[in-house]
């Protein structure tokens, strides 16, 4: 009966999952000692599904994202992207960082081309795709500008286009809006979700913002404190919204939003220390 359930359950059932994390643990070593960052993590992200990871700072949620991106290796366990074991950075995975990290010496278009250049893709074709994506993100008038001429929100849109130029199947978002002011955050969350849904990507979002997680994703996964373990998973369903999946902005005014918010808040077990 619900649009959201119908949309991702059949896909997940018929297709290979976009991401599968199997029994992953991660320890790292420093002169001060040994840290168990993640422990016994099992997680599956279906094709086209939007999943968010929330948890307190230091719970290893960004680390888990780095494992999926292939820039860290698990101490034990395995990560699969579209059924293939992750051994290093893969072209199937796009990663959006907390800040835009645009290169100030490149124009907007050239910044969006970075991944295509690194991966040795057809430059002419990629340039067209980059320009198309930048237009779609509302940055069409700024192709030949330099990053310092843009506002924070505009820069993050360019970063999104840069992530999508290389046509990843899975997009990892690591607190992608944390550097933006709150109005810009709300506006850009809508745009980003819209673009990513249109492009048919699977998404894993890491955030410390409960509201953002509820608004943007289909499923919220709560990680416990270090060592990070999966504490619970919550499906975000909005039966009160009749016409399909509401946009992130609309979600915030639905009655379900507050219910999810308070139950996730309890799950997180936040208490200020010191």
């Amino acid at each position, binding site marked *: 009966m619900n649009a959201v359930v119908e949309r991702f359950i059949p896909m997940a059932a018929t297709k290979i999952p976009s991401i599968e994390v199997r029994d992953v643990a991660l320890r790292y070593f420093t002169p001060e000692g040994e840290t168990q960052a993640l422990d016994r993590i099992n997680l599956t992200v279906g094709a086209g599904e939007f999943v968010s990871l929330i948890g307190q700072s230091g719970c290893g949620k960004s680390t888990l994202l780095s494992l999926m991106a292939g*820039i860290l290796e698990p101490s034990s366990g395995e990560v699969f992207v579209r059924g293939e074991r992750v051994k290093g*950075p893969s072209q199937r995975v796009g990663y959006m960082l907390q800040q835009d990290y645009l290169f100030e010496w490149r124009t907007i278009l050239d910044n969006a081309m970075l991944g295509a250049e*690194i991966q040795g893709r057809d430059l002419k074709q990629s340039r067209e795709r980059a320009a198309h994506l930048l237009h779609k993100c509302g940055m069409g008038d700024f192709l030949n500008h330099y990053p310092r001429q843009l506002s924070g929100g505009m820069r993050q849109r360019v970063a999104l286009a840069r992530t999508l130029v290389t046509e990843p199947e899975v997009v990892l978002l690591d607190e992608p809006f944390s550097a933006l002011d709150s109005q810009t955050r709300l506006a850009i969350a809508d745009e980003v979700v819209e673009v990513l849904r249109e492009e048919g990507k699977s998404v894993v979002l890491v955030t410390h913002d409960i509201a953002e997680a509820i608004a943007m994703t289909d499923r919220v996964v709560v990680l416990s404190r270090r060592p990070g373990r999966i504490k619970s998973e919550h499906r975000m369903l909005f039966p009160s919204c009749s016409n399909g999946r509401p946009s992130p902005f609309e979600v915030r005014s639905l009655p379900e939003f507050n219910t999810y918010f308070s139950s996730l808040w309890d799950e997180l077990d936040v208490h200020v220390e010191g």
Partner: protein
Amino acid sequence: MTLSANVPWAPAAPKRTTLQEPSVEYRAWRAREHRRRYYIMASRLALLGAFMLLWEFLAKSHIVNPMLTSYPSALWPTFVDLLHNGDLVGHTWTTFKATLVGFVLSMLIGIGVAAGLWWSGFAYKVLDPFLVIANAMPKIAFVPIFYIWLGSEYSVYGMAVAIAVFVTIMVIYDGFQSIDPNKIKLARTLGASRGQVLRMVVLPGSVPTLIAALKMNIGLALVGVIVGEFQSASSGLGFLIVNGSQIFKLNVVMTAIVVLALLSGLMYLAIARLEAALSKRYS
């Protein structure tokens, strides 16, 4: 001449944001700013003039011995004489060329070694104390050895490189290290190899550092060249200075020093120009 960071061609005038007529206050402010710049330039010239006049007066009135100090009005005839009969252009060219060679070599070696150290953290850890000591070492101590090892021409280049190269390596390496690690992480998530990270992130991201190194280098290379020429050369401004002092022609020494000051000023200005052109893109 002052070579401050406050270069006159830096875009200082604020952009107008409105199209309406500038207000009276704004025009008054602009006039004040304009006058201020004018006073600064005039004061600089006045300071230089006062120095020359004082020098001339003290030497002419024998308060200081003109044999030891020469005096400004004697420099111009000496300059003209050297130009016609003493191959001043040739000497200046020799010094300029040697400085350029030393400076290009130490930049290339500096970038190469710094890239190697960036590539291998292990190599950096191993070599770090040696670099620090080599940098602290007074390289001038090597002038006689370089002369024996390299001969009269190459010992001058060798000295220029020896003086400039170690600090260049350290400055450039620091620049490479200060690239935001997240920019590197970004390139790695896109699948960049170490070489690609160096070429596409670290090197272009270090352009401001490279320019700073360039500025520092040109002065150091010149020091190396002059010191090298003191020992070994048969031409160059350093040779003129040593030769002039040996035969007690202080006019020649002073003229050579003034030419040297002009030369270093011009080379510095050239780099400042380059910096202004590049900073539009790399800031």
